[in-house]
């Protein structure tokens, strides 16, 4: 029994259809989330690049950020270490798989 049967009026249907089709808010929210995640990744990288074998001058000073970032760091490192997942993530940005 679909939601869109005779009980729902035509106008109601149109309203819902266009409402959902033009829900820019939802779209932009996910874009922003994506952007926020990228920004966090970048921040992680310039803090802890030495974990990936890239020496950085401030590695000593970012150690004291660990108490706040350790949980994220774990996940980040695992993602960064696996090339496949990085490619998937970045391709995913382009909506090519839809």
């Amino acid at each position, binding site marked *: 029994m679909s939601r869109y049967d005779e009980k729902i009026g035509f106008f109601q249907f149109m309203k819902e259809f266009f409402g959902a089709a033009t829900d820019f808010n939802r779209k932009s929210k996910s874009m922003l989330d994506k952007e926020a995640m990228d920004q966090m990744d970048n*921040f992680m990288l310039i803090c802890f690049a030495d974990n990936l074998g890239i020496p950085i001058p401030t590695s000593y*000073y970012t150690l004291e950020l660990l*108490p706040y970032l350790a949980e994220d760091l774990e996940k980040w490192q695992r993602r960064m270490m696996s090339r496949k997942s990085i490619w998937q993530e970045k391709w995913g940005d382009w909506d090519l798989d839809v």
Partner: protein
Amino acid sequence: MNKIVFFGGKGGVGKTSCSAAFAVYSAKQGKKTLIVSTDPAHSTSDIFEMKIGMDVTPIRDNLDGLEIDAEYESDKYISGVKRSLGKVISPIIMEEINRQLDAASISPGTHESAVFDKMIEIIVEKTDDYDQIVFDTAPTGHTIRLFSLPELLGVWMDSLLAKRGRALEVSQMTKSVDRGSKAYLDHDPILKILNRRKTNMEKAREIMIDDKQLDFIFVLNAEKLPIEETKKAIDILKKYNMPVRKLVINRILPEKMSDDFWKIKKEDEIKYVAEIEDFFSDKSIAKLPLLPKDMRAHNIDDMAEYFKDAFTNE
């Protein structure tokens, strides 16, 4: 003479002797003096023939000493991080992160940063307790790197702060509650830590390039290599806006030489001293003699006398 004095120069030219003698001289002048050794191979203890530790140790009247121990400082810092980690994260992740911290404690740059931090701490905290702080530094290369750190790290810190701020802003945009509020940024502990670091760096940097507060004195011998190295080092320091205005020529031979070998040596020396005075004509130059005996606790005072007339044209 400024309050903070750094003695630098090529390895083996007698930096420790000069800085010790100068510290003794300044203590005898009635100034409360602190001598700090930043060289990993500490010889300040040997010169004063006593154990000088990581904490301020009284040496004589008006004179205290301290040797910065990089290993101890970095261990202290890292175990501090471990302690605060233990409070917030799960034991499983702790395992992983501890491995990282242990790796960090032996990675290059860690010791350098630890020494640098301690140096800043001394400069910032002890300036009120002493009239004169004398630093006996490691050979040229180390020291110059140490002095270039604030510049290098400052840029890095700026980008860290900018990135963190940006990341927080963006993640704020999607939150329906207190969207983009400044309070949220103010409470971020990470920004707090980074900002504190940055302020410290800037403080240190200000003191370092302020020729009213800090003097950098180069020690050299009247020989080819130390002269060349000093030229290079002074150029590099200039790039970081640190003026060097004083030189010490150490180990000057006595005037009267009877032996042929020493006569030739003396002639060379006169030539080199002339070269130094010519090339560094804009700097004030002090000369210290070569002592017949090793410099130890009992004859530091003799050497200290030579600083009486040195740098008088200030």
